């Protein structure tokens, strides 16, 4: 092939691939709104708050960003709203070990941001992030879990708390909670956390049945 022919192949071939890309883009644009909930004004304002504080400068969202802080795609599913709001407005007040600085996010901005994070947690991302397969394997193997352990998994307590190195870091580590607190304290704390720890960000679990609360407390007491 002559250089001239190769040049034409480069120019027109690339143009051809670009046209295909544009067609796919148009098709995608038509499908995106059906794969996500409606964008309310609150969600849009929340997105602007996300940009204003350059959140992507530390976090990732939809897996893209800076890898310095946790991914925010599913955060609204993992953490209670009240916790998120308090954390956003003053991170260290709810988690003294938090790395995130206090940016002076207002109450209104925090509400908007949470609306945005709730929206993004409901976007159809083709199954990303995947559920941890090894943790699931353990859950299947643990068919003989106690009622309290099963509740701990169902209620997703591990989103904030850690036991034996597995779980979140935003709440206290529960590995040895049974040797720190007695049964009465733990049971009362489940019903009204703020009565025991004044500044606690943990939501109340008073809505559980008395049996469920007892099972969960049995499990906590067993962690020595």
């Amino acid at each position, binding site marked *: 092939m002559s250089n001239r022919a190769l040049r034409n192949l480069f120019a027109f071939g690339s143009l051809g*691939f670009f046209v295909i890309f544009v067609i*796919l883009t148009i098709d995608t644009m038509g499908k995106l709104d059906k794969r996500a909930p409606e*964008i309310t004004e609150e969600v849009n304002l929340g997105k602007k708050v996300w940009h*204003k504080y350059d959140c992507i*400068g*530390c976090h990732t969202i939809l897996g*893209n*960003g800076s890898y310095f802080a946790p991914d925010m795609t599913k955060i609204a599913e993992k953490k209670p709203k009240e916790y998120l709001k308090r954390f956003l407005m003053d991170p260290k007040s709810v988690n003294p070990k938090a790395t995130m600085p206090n940016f002076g996010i207002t109450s209104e901005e925090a509400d908007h941001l949470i609306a945005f994070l709730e929206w993004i947690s409901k976007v159809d991302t083709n199954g*990303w992030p995947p559920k941890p397969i090894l943790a699931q394997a353990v859950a299947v193997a643990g068919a003989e879990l106690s009622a309290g352990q099963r509740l701990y998994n169902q209620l997703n307590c591990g989103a904030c708390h850690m036991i034996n*190195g597995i779980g979140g870091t935003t709440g206290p580590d529960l590995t040895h909670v049974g040797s720190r607190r007695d049964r009465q304290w733990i049971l009362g704390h489940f019903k009204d956390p703020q009565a025991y720890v004044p500044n606690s960000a943990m939501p109340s679990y008073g809505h559980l049945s008395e049996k469920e609360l007892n099972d969960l407390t049995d499990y906590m007491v067993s962690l020595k």
Partner: protein
Amino acid sequence: MTVKYESQKIAQHFFTFAVLLFLVQVVVGIIAALQFIWPEFFILNFNIIRSLHINALVVWLLVGLMGATYYVVPEESETELWSVPLAKFQFWATVVTVTLVVLGYIWMGINPQANSTALFGTGILNEGREYIEAPRWADILIALSAVLFLINNFMTVLKTKKWTGIQGTLLAGLTFLALMYIPGMFYTKSMVKDQFWWWWVVHLWVEGAWEVIAGALLAFMLMKTLNAQRHVVERWMYIEVALVLFTGILGTGHHYYWIGTPEYWLWVGGIFSSLEPIPLLLMVWDAFRTTREYRTVTNKVGLFYAVAHAIFNFVGAGLWGVIHTLPQVNKWTHGTQITTAHGHLAFYGAYVLLVLSMIYVTLPAIRGTREFSGARAYQSFWWMTISMVFIVLTITGAGMVQTYMERLMGLDYVAVKANYNLWFWIFRAIFGIGFLIGVVIFAIDFFRLGKEPLKVPSGEAIRAEG
């Protein structure tokens, strides 16, 4: 050896600014690395430091490519540049804009509330979008600067109408680059659409337009340093850049797996991005084949850097990219440090070494020196390259630990980062210092080249002709 056309010397302005920003980029990179160990290490938070790190990189590479273009186009067109005052104006306008943007980031770092959205709807100091953080007013100024730059070069070509393959491809790549800035310049309410268009900018730059530019400049450098025949280097250049775009454009799909886009992108992105390393491998083969064929080397350092660029372009952009490009793998690695590792080696190999090799190929002529010692150039190369390889290995290790513990085992992000990956961060920072040493040696060499008497016997000096 001197330049053929006096106006080619304008390249030096751009190179100087690029080298200074390179130093800034690496210094803030080390601060960022230390913040992984001590998050409160510096008065500016990580987000600001990281914005500076990646923006300094993008800007100095673009400025370096502009300088290289101002050198190549008059040479290829066999005439003086259309307007030197315009080039100087465009240079200083770029410097002023970039400085204002940097000051804005620092001001935002000190006072986060200063990033008001009242005026543009997007932040006045920082748009809060990775890589394209620059606020809207700066976007417009940068686009204007790019238009002036393109006009100046196209007018130069039109003076003699010598459309060589190299400069045609180079200017096509640069025009594509400028056009692909536009999809990043409008606001969308949907974060999914936001990221969709954002990848048009980021991916079609680094895996599209920039690789086309790299192909053209590699051809130019092989011709200059080896006196290789034009029709041969241009033939391979066309094949390389064609394959870059045939695979790279639809390869954008590998960013559309998990961001809320339809499932067919898993197929499109998986297939085309897996082919992306092929043209990069072809460039390595091209560099070696040409070097073997023409044994008379007129600029050893320039050729050395150009070949190194081809190799690390393939390893960093090609291999380190392809390992996590299939959806089955990417599902687990997406959003982890594996991407950071790929980013570091790809940018170093594909573009840092490209601009540095263009500097070594053109600077002797710009400074009017016949011979120069390559000692510092090789020293800086090994400091930078060995350090970068280890930086990438530490981050790759961190990424593998993160993928396993966080994604497969379900451990908490913060626990993995703070406990299990701590030593990787420490080693990364140490190798960062090694990289900085290499950059300082390079900067000294850049400012002294051709301005000091040769200390080595002339037999060992590098003859720079061409």
